[in-house]
């Protein structure tokens, strides 16, 4: 292969890469599309270089078709961009991420740990036959029976 061909191929590759970079980077819809067109331009340069190398018209014919398709694509893209602009009034590609994964809702907190009942709330059995109160366990029992000497025994 001749170095001429190599030079043109390299230019084509550079254009292609720069176009890719622009498409990935720019947030303006127009400029992104422009970069995509630049990628096509790099490819057409490749085609033309090979056409010259092989000394026939096939590459050039194909390039014509690439051009045709690029034009159609540009027309449709501009129509779409206009429609999108009408909707959000901005040319920012960042405005259109509705199909992204949403953040999930916050996980529910773990269930309340059951606190064991404090020991003080368990009734101490009274020494004499008083009926202890049957109130719920949250209320501490009143000590009904005094431990000192009763009045008469």
């Amino acid at each position, binding site marked *: 292969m001749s170095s001429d061909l190599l030079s043109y191929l390299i230019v084509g590759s550079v254009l292609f890469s720069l176009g890719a970079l622009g498409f990935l980077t720019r947030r303006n819809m127009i*400029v992104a599309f422009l970069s995509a067109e630049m990628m096509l331009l790099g490819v057409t340069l490749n085609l033309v270089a090979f056409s010259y190398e092989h000394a026939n018209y096939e590459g050039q*014919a194909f390039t014509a078709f690439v051009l045709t398709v690029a034009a159609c694509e540009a*027309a449709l893209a501009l129509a779409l961009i206009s429609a999108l602009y009408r909707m959000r009034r901005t040319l920012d590609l960042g405005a259109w991420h509705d199909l992204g994964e949403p953040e999930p809702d916050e996980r529910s907190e773990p269930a309340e740990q059951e606190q064991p009942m404090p020991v003080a709330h368990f009734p101490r059995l009274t020494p004499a036959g008083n009926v202890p109160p049957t109130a719920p366990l949250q209320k501490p029992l009143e000590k009904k029976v005094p431990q000192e000497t009763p009045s008469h025994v």
Partner: protein
Amino acid sequence: MNTLLDWINENRGQLVVPVFGFFALYLLLPRDYRFWRPVGIAFGVVALGVLGFLFGSPGVTLNGILFYAFAGVAIAAAAATVTFPNPIYSALSFAIVVLSVSGLFVLRNAMFLAATTVIIYAGAIVVTFLFIIMLSRHPGNAPYDRNAREPFLAALAAFLLLSVLLFTLVDWKQNRISQSLAPVTKTFGANKLFEANPRARVGFIPVPPSIDPYPHSHMLADEPSPLRGLGRTFFTDYLFAVELAGTLLLVAGVGAVAIAPRRVRLRIKPPVK
């Protein structure tokens, strides 16, 4: 590790281009701090220089000088398209790219294509884009124009791609690619371009030895005028494709009209009497 260093040493010329180019573009991409731009431009100039030195046409011929001019302007303008924050400048740089590439087309004997490219790209597409851009102008630059998205990763991806292509092309030139992948030779009449390769493969599929290019393919040498040769090719070899392309254009036009938002109809209120 040593092999890596050896390899870097061996290919240092080729490595300079993507690496410096990466830094250049990374620094040039729109960002808040503008003082990196001169540094980026410096890197870019170095990268471009090395690229031109390594892979340019040898010899000081008109062909070579024109090639250097057009190619350099194309690449610089491409970098400008990608890195200008102002979208209008971006579009105009793209127009310059198109013009330079057309120049390269002319050097490769594709006059019709050069003209067509200028008409369609620079004439129709860029102008239409400029209209749309002007509809949505922001004072200063829009916030979405001032900052690039993911500059590091994008530059990395792009220049990784570029370096792969670069290395492959160089390997190809230096015949370092496996011989089974060398292209098939064809001799068309008096034009002997490549040697026949009986072990040719496309991937792992062997190429049948009796492959012929399109039998009626017109050679550049047969027609003195490139335009006439291209026309002949269109209307004999690729007639069907041409008609299809026309249909495609029609469909695209109809589609664009269908998609584009309607203009608001003005209601004219009758005067109250």
